[in-house]
């Protein structure tokens, strides 16, 4: 390695470290702040040098559980996300398979409509959907946060593109052995499509886990509200105690961070796939 290359390498690391530092500061501030007494969080937030708490205490964490039903929010978020992801994987992959491999009248037209639906974001339909579920009497339930989000045009599209790229021979062999479409799908296609299942699961999990707008519109009791709404209401709940808020934040993000660290490769691959669409 010559001198010029070494300087280049050092400058790359220097820029990366500086940027990494800027990315980490808010997270570190939250983590350390969650162990500080409330009156010290604000006083010390401004001083980079005094980010470290003078003494570690779990008091804020106990306080969160005393002030709001954190465990309930966590369960709600996990339950709602799980149902949407699991239901979505099943329903959307089946539909995509019907588009990719089965013959039925009207297929190509319906596919065209599904692809067109991809560009409608939730925000564009939130108001009439709100009106619709009000008429159905679904407001303030788990179902209202789950059922409308199981079928997803983009998930269908991701599955569809993947199934098209699978070699047909696998399915042909099974068909000759007398297997019907159900068996072929569950025994042959699905096991060979793990990457796309992972991608769809991660993308829909990320969207649902962070959802705020819809739960804000359709829920009002703590019993069914998810974490993002939990922290929004906790923040507006007097007295404003930053230590508690940070403890809430740390507990809220830790499970997702763990999942992220464990399945990092899938996360990155999943996101990268979305770019292929254009």
């Amino acid at each position, binding site marked *: 390695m010559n001198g010029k290359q070494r300087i280049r390498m050092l400058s790359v690391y220097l820029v990366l470290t500086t940027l990494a530092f800027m990315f980490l500061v*808010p997270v570190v501030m939250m983590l350390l702040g969650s162990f500080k007494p409330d009156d010290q969080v604000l006083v010390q937030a401004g001083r980079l040098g005094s980010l470290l708490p003078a003494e570690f205490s779990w008091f804020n964490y106990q306080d969160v559980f005393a002030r709001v039903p954190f465990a309930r929010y966590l369960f709600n978020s996990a339950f709602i996300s799980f149902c949407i992801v699991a239901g979505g994987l099943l329903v959307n992959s089946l539909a995509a398979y019907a588009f990719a491999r089965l013959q039925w009248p009207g297929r190509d037209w319906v596919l065209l409509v599904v692809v067109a639906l991809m560009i409608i974001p939730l925000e564009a339909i939130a108001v009439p959907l709100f009106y619709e579920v009000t008429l159905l009497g679904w407001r303030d339930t788990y179902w209202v946060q789950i059922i409308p989000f199981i079928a997803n045009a983009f998930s269908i599209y991701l599955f569809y593109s993947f199934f098209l790229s699978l070699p047909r021979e696998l399915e042909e062999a099974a068909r000759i052995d007398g297997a019907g479409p159900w068996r072929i799908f569950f025994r042959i296609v699905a096991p060979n499509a793990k990457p796309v299942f992972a991608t769809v699961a991660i993308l829909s999990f990320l969207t649902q886990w962070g959802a*705020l707008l819809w739960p804000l519109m359709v829920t009002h009791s703590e019993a069914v509200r998810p974490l993002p709404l939990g922290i929004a209401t906790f923040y507006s709940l007097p007295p404003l105690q930053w230590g508690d808020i940070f403890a809430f934040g740390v507990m809220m993000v830790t499970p997702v961070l763990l999942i992220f660290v464990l399945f990092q490769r899938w996360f990155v691959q999943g996101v990268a796939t979305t770019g292929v669409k254009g």
Partner: protein
Amino acid sequence: MTSAGHQPGNQNARLAWLFALPALLGLLIFVLLPFVLSVILSFTNLRLGSPLPLEFMGFSQYQRIFTDQAFLAALRNNSLFALIVVPLQTGLALLLALLVNQPLRGMVLFRSLFFMPVVFPLSLVAVVWILVFAPGPQGLLNQVLETITLGTWQPRDFLHDPAWALPAISLTSIWQGVGFQMVILLAALQGIAHELYEAARVDGANRWQQFVCITLPQLRNAIIFVVLVTTILAFRLFDQVQIMTQGGPNNATTTVMYEAVNSAFGSQQVARAAAMTVVFFTIVLLITLLQRAVSRHERVIE
């Protein structure tokens, strides 16, 4: 098998419908129907709990929202937000992707670090950044700026300052979202054939020339995609506003979605909110069509 043997085509078609039915029903009831409804409702006077009979109102909801100062401010804010966030976030994402793509040790770690905020729910990010922007010398950003400028910086209340509130929200959004864009651009970077660079090197092109003549053109469609997605996200802006500023100060950070939600269930004006979401959808549609046109243009040139 024998009974179905007469019409295997028919039976398969029925089975195929069965595969597709749950998803299609879901899309029909929870996407297509509300979408059609939002267009229809926007031409009425629907207001939840109102004693007035439902009436066709023509374009009057649209006339009203386009003369409403708050809604016009919302459109302006969304556009301004897009103008700030799209170039900055795309540029930063490209820089990060190029850096992380270097064949050096530890790049996976840096990649994960920059991607990490993507898994943070926006609501949490918004709450944490309220403290970053805290007023006075206690705020993290104020303190940092004071240190950098050797004490000449006058601490300010970013989120309550009409000039600073929207840029502050922009910074928050970039921090949370740039990793997503970085990963997409990184994948595109890694898809560029090495031969192109080797050929350029043989021709004596320096790094900058290689970047301009190979990397950028090869990334063109990925960049267009990233710009499109970021622009649409900019028009969807809601969570940060709801938590950090509630549209204030003085409508400086209100957005189309924030106005729509407030109309829909703040004042129960469903029709008015529907008109706003139709405007929102039209913007999204135009951006998407623009991206399609630009990308196709590229393919024709190739």
